[in-house]
């Protein structure tokens, strides 16, 4: 009888340990997925911050340096095993060190960053290799027309579209310049300057100025809400 009781005790203990282990495994799997998500989100923030830095005059290497530090930081934080975050920066045209800055004179300005990531997680009996790409692009598209008024006065209308990763996005601020043949000037109230925000990433600006040349050049400089800077110039067409 004693043997029977001991057997039952052992059996119940085994059942308990089995159940306990199963629950801990499930909890680990949850933290596993959450950790991966947090790392991906953090990587995206690093790319955005680095691009904002480079677009404001920072060196292209900023992205690589910041991602190196992030990889090292993340590697130290995973509690349940080993975490290795590797990355490679976009180097194929138009990217250099993962950065693409193209502020043209054709009405299109682009500030972009591109990086490939490999996240390797080694846990008890688990070996995960995940690849993902982070591509951050802020694009500014402008179109400008002007109407000749009396003397050299011209009414200039500029339409701007701002995009984040190809979808319309809001701007934090806008600065418009026009070229009066010698200087770049910001139009003010004296120029009847108006800015209309359509709320969907489209902006309309209008002003009247003395511009002797028939080539009416305008330049738009903007920051998106992620602090990424972009600018572009365009020559207005007469209507």
């Amino acid at each position, binding site marked *: 009888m004693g043997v029977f009781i001991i057997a*039952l005790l052992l059996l119940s203990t085994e059942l308990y340990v089995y159940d306990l282990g199963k629950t801990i495994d*499930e909890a680990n799997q949850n933290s596993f997925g959450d950790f991966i998500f*947090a790392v991906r989100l*953090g990587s995206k923030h690093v790319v955005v911050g680095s691009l904002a830095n480079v677009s404001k005059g920072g060196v292209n290497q900023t992205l690589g340096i910041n991602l190196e530090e992030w990889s090292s930081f993340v590697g130290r934080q995973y509690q349940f095993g080993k975490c290795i975050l590797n990355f490679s920066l976009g180097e194929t045209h138009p990217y250099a060190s993962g950065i693409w800055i193209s502020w043209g004179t054709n009405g299109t300005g682009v500030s972009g960053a591109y990086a490939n990531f490999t996240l390797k997680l080694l846990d008890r009996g688990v070996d995960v290799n995940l690849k993902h790409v982070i591509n951050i692009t802020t694009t500014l598209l402008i179109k400008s027309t002007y109407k000749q008024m009396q003397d050299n006065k011209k009414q200039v209308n500029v339409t701007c579209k701002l995009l984040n990763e190809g979808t319309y996005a809001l701007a934090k601020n806008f600065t418009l310049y026009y070229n009066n043949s010698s200087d770049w000037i910001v139009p003010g109230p004296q120029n009847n300057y108006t800015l209309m925000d359509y709320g969907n990433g489209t902006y309309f600006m209008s002003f009247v100025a003395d511009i002797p040349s028939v080539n009416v050049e305008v330049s738009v400089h903007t920051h998106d809400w992620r602090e990424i800077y972009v600018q572009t110039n365009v020559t207005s067409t007469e209507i």
Partner: protein
Amino acid sequence: MFNKKAQIRMLEAFLAVLVIFSASIISIKFSPPTNFDNEKMLSTLGMQALIELDSNGTLGKLIDERNWTAVTEDLKILLPVGVSFNVIVYDSAMHQINDFTIGNGLEGQKVVSVEYPCASQSLECRFYLVRLQLAFAG
């Protein structure tokens, strides 16, 4: 006489087995899984709240600004009523940077801790480790 004694012993042993077995079943089926389910749920709730707050870079921005009041208020909104929490923020050198208590007063028998690596979108790209401790209040 001998048979009667043996019968009582048998009954005693049978009852002992019954007691032990039922105790084991109760302990397996009820107590431990409930605790672990609660811990798992708290841990998931905590991570989801932090991920939500960090999805557009708000968490990193608030930490950059040392705006602990806003962190507390946002987590109060994101976490369900009845969950108490406390947050400790470390910089990349693992120094605690919040000199202000972030939380709504941690209280509860079982406290769960989740750690969240956070990168801010600032030009300097700062990194933080956010340790969120949670418990079911009461």
